[in-house]
């Protein structure tokens, strides 16, 4: 079986965001970065799949030079192969452009059975690349997956559980499939020291737009329909009121105030 994990590097949520507004691009090089939290679950699920069913696991990312770090982490966790899609032309890609590049990489890898993504990135927060990727590739679209029940590469079938509003949906789908996973599906493991040392010395192969055969005009800021035109800090919430006094009085006041909102029936 051939398994791909899509791993994204994102700015640490604690980091200051450096934004190039006229260009509509994020200055990713200037920020502290981490592996997208949801992608740790995706990678772990990919590793578990390889353990349970055998096969090769390939991790891919699209991102600038320093995004190689997230792939190095994948190598430290014994991923068989990594590819970094990196080209100045990719900067500023929206969801469709991003998924187009990832789709091109998956096609280039060839004969892929299952692609794991995280539910959402914590920088763009769009949560839609998995669905878009499935649609572009014509693969089964399995989102919000909370459990992979079984994979049968011979019969080209996968059964998963999806955590959706109101409950869990059990879905059988044809392979190949794109599976995007949520928190709770597994407990991501950490790389060991030896793995980290080994990965530190490895070369991270890069694919440019030309290598992937994608038209540079159709990706990046130039090729994207959606564009960020403004970034702002959300207005602070109005200064709250600290209720002081005896617990009895506080409880009286706050329950009155809440009942006055006419929400509680």
């Amino acid at each position, binding site marked *: 079986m051939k398994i791909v994990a899509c791993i994204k590097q994102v*700015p640490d*949520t604690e980091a200051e*965001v450096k934004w190039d507004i006229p260009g509509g691009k994020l200055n990713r090089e200037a920020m502290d970065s981490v592996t997208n*939290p949801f992608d740790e679950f995706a990678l772990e699920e990919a590793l578990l799949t390889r353990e349970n069913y055998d096969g090769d696991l390939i991790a891919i990312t699209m991102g600038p030079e320093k995004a190689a770090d997230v792939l190095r982490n994948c190598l430290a966790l014994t991923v068989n192969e990594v590819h970094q899609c990196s080209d100045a032309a990719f900067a500023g890609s929206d*969801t*469709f452009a991003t*998924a187009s590049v990832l789709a091109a990489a998956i096609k280039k890898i060839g004969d892929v059975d299952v692609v794991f993504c995280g539910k959402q990135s*914590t*920088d763009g*927060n*769009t*949560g*839609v690349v998995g*669905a*878009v990727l*499935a*649609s*572009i590739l014509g*693969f*089964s*679209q399995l989102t919000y997956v909370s459990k992979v029940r079984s994979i049968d590469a011979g019969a080209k079938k996968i059964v998963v559980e999806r955590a*959706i*509003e*109101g*409950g*869990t*949906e059990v*879905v*059988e*789908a044809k392979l190949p*499939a794109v599976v995007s996973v949520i*928190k*709770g599906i597994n407990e991501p493991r950490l790389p060991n020291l030896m793995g980290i040392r080994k990965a530190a010395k490895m070369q991270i192969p890069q694919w440019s737009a030309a290598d992937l055969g994608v038209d540079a005009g159709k990706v990046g800021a130039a090729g*994207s*329909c*959606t*564009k*960020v*035109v403004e970034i*702002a*800090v*959300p207005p602070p*919430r*109005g200064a*709250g009121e*600290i*209720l002081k006094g005896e*617990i009895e009085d*506080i*409880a*009286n006041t*706050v*329950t009155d*105030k*809440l*009942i006055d*909102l006419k*929400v*509680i*029936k």
Partner: protein
Amino acid sequence: MANDVWVYIEHKDGAVTPMSFELLGIGKTLADGLGSNVCAFVVGEGTDNIAKEAGSYGAAKVIAVDAGVFKGFRPDAYAKAAAFLLDKYKPEIALFRATSQGTDVAGAAAAQLGFGLCTDTIGIAVDGGKLKMTRAAFGGNYTVTVVNEKATPQIATVRPKAFAMPVQDASKTAEVVKESFTVNEADLNTKVLEFIKSAVAINLVEADIIVSGGRGLGSAEGFDLLKQLAEVIGGGVGASRAAVDSGWISVEQQVGQTGKTVKPKIYIACGISGAIQHLAGMRTSDCIVAINKDPDAPIFKAATFGIVGDYKAVVPKLIEKFKGKLGK
């Protein structure tokens, strides 16, 4: 008409809730600004009642793809039908709810049409015929404004409860257009085997009242007290990541960056410090009550009402007072 605003009506096996129609409200506002109509579109089997109800919530026209193959939700089938309709009619704007179904269909349909979309929008306005969409980014630390300059329709998913529910008026009816589009069963990739209903009765994303607990509860038993309070005031129970990771409550109830984004009218945070990753998931709640024994806890900066104290003393008092005042 070409510059109409379309609203996707989601349902589960033909069942709708009033929330399914919520975007007809903001859809109408946008259509008024464009001098056009708000229309509903629906994919399913036996959609007549849904179409009728959409009319009562303000849709001027309902476009339906109705066939047996669309009985239960399947992303590939629904996205193909949605893409077909959007390509054929080319409305100016198409809105979906940012739910699992709305996101699945919007993302895949936009991809089939060959362009990007804006997801989980919380603010939306028309500026020179183009949408300006506001959404949270970077773990909720920032808001960004996004435009979609090249695509028709401009597709957006909209966060549940970001806009007011339209008022239902049973005397209003919509013109219904049925499109005979279908897909072959053999061409579909997915099949739903079963649906297991959640043991958690209240979906936090749609809840008006949430009582949430964090590490400060100290144990799983702490949540029993919160559940009692939630029951008295008709709310759902949420949690911070620390409480979930401690195994005190299910991951389904986590609020925040790696959990759910909620927007209740009342959010009561007990023993939660107010880390940015938690705030990211609840900071747009209408009224936030924080109960924390540390007066310097950052949650107090986000709270409408703050109570400095031990939740073990405060929560039982609240339960007692509510019970008395609500006659329960």
